[in-house]
């Protein structure tokens, strides 16, 4: 099997990446990645080591990623908006951190990293490359998910025709990796957005004649609300893929109105096994069928289980195993109709804000640091703009100015949490939020 770096040579001078108005060919991207191999050597980044990488889609970041894979590294993809870079590097025992900003890479060696998790150590010892994506954990701590690159790339052996695709989904998400490898294996063009506002995305679709637009249902709602789609020519779009949140009829209607010539494809995937090729049912596109050759499915008590060769090697922490006999429990509630599945969403407290997962306990822990808070309970409430929103009920300590307190809570959360995790709705209560068994009561708003 050719490495992802060697794979680039198959497409020579064809355009590979469009970024900030510049086009980089496959040959140029290959040359850039080769130069990044030299850069890594000069920076003292050892081959076969754990390296953290932080950056959005751009020629430099892609080249660095491929160079790291060429040097058989395990690359931990640090979430772009994360304020806890050091903590995440620590979690995976990264030997170095590479950050790309404005096409400049800065490499920082990390002193005295802890011991590698046995799964990562095993992969590196065998001389295999891999990558780590972080997924929200129920305890509030992000869980590092380890994938073997070789295993993950298996599903790109027989990819279809090349398209001009926007890399809307972030590189540090499994869906971003999926976008990258589909394009680089099919010889397509990756159009990397600088920002992801509806206006910027529309402008880029028009200028780069984007054919495939992989987005989330929430983004479709926003595009509709912004009205920006009416000011640009979006007729190049042939396929809109939508994932990470349950699909609604309204989203389907909006796609049909904004992209009348495009086919809509619902995607389903998780950080733990990637996103399989899927087909939407003709009569009702909320139903999908996963690629049965590579992904076996079974439904146990309404919950979807998946068995696949691309399933992760495991979590790099002491999380409970969710893979039993090769079957991965997705935790997603589904309806089944023969081979067709309809994803209904998580059967748990998890709040899905525009495709990003929020665990109530993480937010509660931050709010409870405040002296004026005696107790709090975080929950989700449906909101058509972002699917759901984060809400909190607070039992204050003593007499407080409620308006000032609301502001304080938002500011305090803003300094410690990603923006999508900060509660937008804050209500106060004088009642304790625990039931007779001292279990926290969470209002069910969804």
């Amino acid at each position, binding site marked *: 099997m050719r490495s992802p770096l060697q794979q680039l040579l198959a497409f020579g001078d064809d355009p590979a990446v469009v970024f900030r108005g510049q086009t980089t060919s496959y040959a140029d991207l290959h040359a850039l990645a080769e130069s990044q191999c030299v850069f890594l050597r000069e920076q003292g980044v050892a081959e076969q080591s754990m390296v953290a990488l932080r950056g959005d889609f751009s020629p430099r970041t892609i080249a660095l990623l491929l160079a790291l894979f060429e040097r058989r590294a395990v690359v931990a993809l640090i979430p772009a908006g994360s304020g806890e870079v050091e903590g995440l590097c620590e979690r995976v025992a990264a030997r170095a951190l590479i950050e790309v900003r404005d096409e400049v890479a800065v490499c920082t060696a990390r002193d005295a990293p802890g011991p590698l998790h046995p799964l990562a150590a095993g992969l590196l010892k065998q001389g295999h490359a891999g990558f780590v994506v972080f997924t929200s954990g129920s305890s509030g701590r992000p869980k590092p998910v380890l994938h073997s690159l070789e295993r993950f790339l298996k599903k790109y052996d027989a990819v279809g025709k090349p398209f001009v695709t926007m890399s809307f989904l972030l590189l540090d998400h499994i869906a971003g990796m999926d976008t990258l490898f589909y394009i680089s294996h099919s010889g397509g063009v990756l159009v990397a957005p600088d920002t992801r*506002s509806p206006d910027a995305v529309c402008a880029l679709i028009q200028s780069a004649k984007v054919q495939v637009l992989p987005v989330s249902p929430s983004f479709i709602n926003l595009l509709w609300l*912004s009205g*920006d789609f009416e000011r640009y020519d979006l007729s190049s779009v042939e396929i809109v893929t939508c994932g990470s949140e349950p699909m609604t009829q309204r989203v389907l209607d909006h796609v049909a109105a904004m992209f009348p010539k495009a086919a809509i494809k619902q995607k389903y995937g998780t950080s733990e096994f990637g996103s399989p090729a899927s087909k939407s049912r003709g009569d009702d596109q909320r139903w999908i069928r996963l690629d049965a050759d590579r992904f076996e499915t079974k439904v146990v008590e309404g919950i979807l289980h998946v068995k696949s060769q691309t399933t992760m090697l495991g979590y790099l922490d002491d999380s409970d195993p969710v893979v039993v006999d090769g079957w991965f429990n997705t935790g997603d509630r589904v309806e089944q109709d023969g081979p067709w599945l309809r994803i209904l969403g998580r059967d748990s407290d998890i709040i899905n804000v525009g495709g990003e997962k929020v665990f109530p306990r993480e937010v509660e822990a931050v709010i409870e640091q405040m002296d004026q808070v005696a107790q709090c309970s975080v929950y989700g409430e449906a909101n058509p*703009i972002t699917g759901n929103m984060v809400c909190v009920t607070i039992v204050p300590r003593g007499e407080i100015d409620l308006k000032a307190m609301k502001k304080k809570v938002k500011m305090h959360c803003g300094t410690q949490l990603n923006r999508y995790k900060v509660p937008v709705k804050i209500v106060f209560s004088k009642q304790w939020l625990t039931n007779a068994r001292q279990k926290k009561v969470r209002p069910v708003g969804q």
Partner: protein
Amino acid sequence: MKDQIFEIIKAAIDELNEELEYDELKDVTPETAIFGGESGIDSLSLVRLVVDVEAGVSEAFDTEVTLANEKAMSSRNSPYRNVAAFTDFVLACLKDAS
């Protein structure tokens, strides 16, 4: 009533802009763009603004309204495009509720 709603929206935008510090949001007028176009706020800020205005309306008029609803999401002209449109939309929702 319309003036009062405008003031509620203005106060909510002012509070939001204490953090965002966008020049375009400094002097709120009916023409101020809220969502869409090159400037304007992002989706998380929009959700927050809508929730804050709901709270302001509830306090001022003692009526609960939902301002992110099917009507808002389906209409061809978004009620969040500027302050004037949002003011009219809040007024209509209030009338429906009472």
